[in-house]
C-alpha cells in the first residue's frame, strides 16, 4: 500500500533521514523503532508532505505522492497523529473532530450554515469509539495529556482514513491509559480494517501489536522484517536493543 524508496532529508547539513526504505502492505500494523533522533518523526513528516524530501520517492497505492502538500495527501485518505500534541487548543473536543469530518465532507467553504448542527452523528460516533464522548464539550486545553493524545487519534479518524500514521501514540500516558490506547489501535486495525504505521519506544507495545517492524538508526533503515527477524538480528542488537533493558 505504501512504498517509500531511498528517501532522504538533510537539515542544515545534518542527515535526519538518509536513504530510508519502508514498505507497508494493506491491513498491516507496521512499527518503526529507533533511538531518539533516529529520524522517525521526520520520516512520517516526509510521507505526509509536511517536510519535502531532498530525494527519494513515496508511492501510495501505486501513485506517486512525493512532494504533495499535506492537504492533498490527506485527500488520499492518509491521516496521522502527532508526537507532540497538535490540536486546536481554543476549540472543544467535539469541534476538533468535527472540523476534520467537515473537511473530509468538503464543507469547509460553507459560510452560512451554522456548523453546530453539521456532521454531529459522524463526530459523535468517532468520539464514542475512542472513549471521549463524555468530554465532548470541554476545551482541549482542559484535557489531561492522555486524553489529548487520544483526541489526536480521533482527529485523524475524522478524515475516514485507509492509512493511519501514529507518532508515539502512547508517549506520556499512564499505564491504564496506555492499555486502553493499545486496545483502540488493535480495534482500528481489526474491525475497521485500517492499515497502521506507528512508531513507539516501548518494545513491549511494539512486539505486542506490530505485524512487522522497521528499525531506523541515524536516518537509515537497518532492517525491515517480522518481529522475530528483528529480535534476532545482530545489527539491531548492537545498534539499538542491546543497550536497553528490554528482555528479548
Amino acid at each position, binding site marked *: 500500500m505504501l512504498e517509500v524508496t531511498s528517501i532522504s532529508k538533510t537539515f542544515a547539513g545534518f542527515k535526519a533521514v538518509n536513504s530510508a526504505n519502508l514498505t507497508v502492505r494493506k491491513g498491516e500494523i507496521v512499527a518503526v523503532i529507533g533511538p531518539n533522533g533516529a529520524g522517525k518523526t521526520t520520516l512520517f513528516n516526509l510521507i505526509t508532505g*509536511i517536510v519535502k524530501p531532498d530525494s527519494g520517492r513515496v508511492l501510495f497505492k501505486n501513485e506517486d505522492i512525493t512532494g504533495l*502538500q499535506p*492537504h492533498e495527501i490527506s485527500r488520499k485518505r492518509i491521516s496521522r497523529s502527532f508526537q507532540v500534541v497538535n490540536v*486546536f*487548543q481554543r476549540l472543544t473536543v467535539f469541534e476538533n473532530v468535527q472540523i476534520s469530518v467537515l*473537511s473530509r465532507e468538503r464543507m469547509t467553504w*460553507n*459560510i*452560512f450554515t451554522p456548523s453546530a448542527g453539521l456532521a454531529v452523528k459522524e463526530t459523535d460516533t468517532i468520539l464514542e469509539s475512542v472513549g471521549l464522548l463524555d468530554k465532548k464539550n470541554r476545551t482541549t486545553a482542559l484535557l489531561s*495529556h492522555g486524553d489529548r493524545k487520544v483526541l489526536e487519534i480521533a482527529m485523524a479518524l475524522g478524515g475516514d482514513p485507509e492509512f493511519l500514521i501514529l507518532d508515539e501514540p502512547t508517549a506520556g500516558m499512564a499505564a491504564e491509559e496506555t492499555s486502553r490506547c493499545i486496545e483502540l489501535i488493535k480495534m482500528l486495525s481489526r474491525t475497521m480494517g485500517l492499515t497502521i504505521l506507528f512508531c513507539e519506544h516501548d518494545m513491549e507495545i511494539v512486539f505486542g501489536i506490530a505485524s512487522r517492524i522497521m528499525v531506523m538508526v541515524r536516518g537509515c533503515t537497518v532492517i525491515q522484517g517480522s518481529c522475530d527477524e528483528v529480535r534476532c538480528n545482530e545489527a539491531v542488537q548492537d545498534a539499538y536493543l542491546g543497550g536497553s533493558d528490554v528482555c528479548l
Partner: protein
Amino acid sequence: MSRKTISGMGAGIIILLLFPVFLPRFYVYLASVILLYGLLATSLNLVLGYGGIFQFHHAVFYGVGAYGTTLMLTKSGLPAIFAFITGPLVSAAFGLVLGIICIRLSRLYFGMLQISLGSLVWAIVYRWYAFTGGDDGIHGIPMPEMISSPKSAFYFTFIITIISLYIMWKIIRSPFGSVLQGIRDNPVRSGMIGINVRRHQLLALVLAGFFAGVAGSLFVVVDNSVFPDMLFWTLSMEIVIMCLLGGWFTFLGPMLGAAVIVGLRTFVSMYTVYWALVLGIIMVLVIFFLPSGILGYAVEKFERGFRKPEGGEQ
C-alpha cells in the same frame, strides 16, 4: 445565545435608536463614527482574532472602499446604490490581490509586507491629485436625499452595521468559521486534516476586506468626505488596538474597543495634541494588564464563576 443576552442586546439597540432624538448633532455624528469604526474593527478581527493572520494594515481596505464609493459617486453618474456596492467590492478585490502577494509569508512577515504595500497605496492616493484629490482629499461629496442629514446618516450606518455584524457572526459560526479558527490555532494540523490553509485564509482576507470597505463607505455617508489619512498606517494601528483592547477572542470586543478608543480620541484631542502618545500608552497597558481585552477579561471572570476547569494537568 441566552435569553438574557438577547434582551440585553435588544435594550442596547433601542437606546441606540433613540440617540438622535435626544442627543445634540455632534454626538449623533460621534455615535455614527463609533459604529462604523466598530464595524471596521470587527472586520479586522475576523482575520486577526479568528483567523490568526497579522493583518497590520487593515486601514488600506477601509480607505480603498471609501475612495471607491466616493469616486463612483462623484465621477460615474450612476445611481448612488452602485457606488455603495462598488466600494466594498473594490476593497474585497484589493484584499484578494494583497492576500495573494503576502499569504506565502510567515505571520510576522505577512504583516510587514502588508504595511509596506499598504503604504505604497497610501502614497499613490496622497500624490494623485487628478484622481483622488491628493492630500486634500475630496469634500462635500453629494449624498442621496434619503441619507443626507446627520440623523438619517446615523440610522443608515446603524442598519448597515447591524446587518454586517450579523453576517460576520454567521460566518464565524459556519464550517468556514470553524476551519478559520482551526487554522489560527494550528495551521500544520489543519493541512493534515485536508484543509487548503492558504485558500481559506485568502477567503477570510477577501471577506475582511469587503466589510472594511463597507465601513469606509459608511464614513463617506457620515462625513461626506474622504482623505488619505483614512489609509495611513497609524489608523491601522488604532484598529488593531481596538481589537486588543476590546478583546480579540470575543465577537463584540472590537466594537467595545472602538467605542472606547473613538471616545477617548475625541476628548483627549480637545486637551492635547499627543493622541499618538496616549494611544501608545494604552497599547502597553493592555498588553501587560489585559492581554485578552476588556470583554475577554469579563468573559473569563464570568465563566470561571460558572464552570470550574475539570480534571487534567495544566
